[in-house]
């Protein structure tokens, strides 16, 4: 998929654990794991907003488009 999820990078930068982020966003760790591993098919705006709010970042910090990547 050309969209790359850099959530791991942001979690490391902010020194936040997945469990804490999952609780703050209102989802499960399994769901977050789906996002981190790139298996997610879609992400709700509400989830993206909650992640960006908690990690104090922009959507572009988490989502990256790489042309030609499958």
């Amino acid at each position, binding site marked *: 998929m050309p969209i790359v999820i850099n959530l791991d990078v942001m979690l490391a930068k902010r020194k936040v654990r997945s469990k804490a982020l999952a609780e703050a966003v209102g989802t499960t760790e399994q769901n977050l794991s789906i996002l981190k591993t790139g298996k997610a098919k*879609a992400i*709700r705006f509400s989830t993206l907003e909650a992640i960006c709010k908690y990690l104090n970042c922009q959507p572009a910090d988490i989502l990256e488009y790489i042309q030609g990547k499958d």
Partner: protein
Amino acid sequence: MNKIQRISCCLKWALVLTLIVLPIFMLAFWWAAPCTSASSGSHHVSLAINYIPEALKINHHLSSQAQILGFLICLIPLSLQLLIIYFLIRLFQNLQQIKIFSLNNVTYLRHTGLALLGTQLIKPFYQVLLSLVLTWDKNGQHAIALSFSTSSFAIILISMLMILFSWIIQEGYSLQQEQRLTV
């Protein structure tokens, strides 16, 4: 064992039995040198599986060659029917193991529908071959017989519905997967 498992198990074993018995019946039928003439007093035990067109009347004794050829030609529709039974066995086996919402079930359903459609599409071809082979012994007269009854139309309709339903279930499964992978 719940109700689905019990019924699936019964149906599976009934189909396994049919899978074994059907070829044996057909072999026995052709070995016994069939004759469709009512005047001969003999009636088929296995009319349902002899594949001979209803319009064809055979009033003579069939040669060994005709019997063998008839049997070989009948293997064509029989193999499709055995394939249908095999797919249904696998389907009920999955249901017995409570794998109800599996993508494999969709595949089995679609393949069953396709094989069922195939049995009707090849019907004209093997019936023509069969009628040629069975009337070849007659002196001076040969016949070609084709039968296409309302039951054939019904089977075609059912097979197309099975293919359609399998597609719908597959689309539903894809939507469900997408929903499951939406964060």
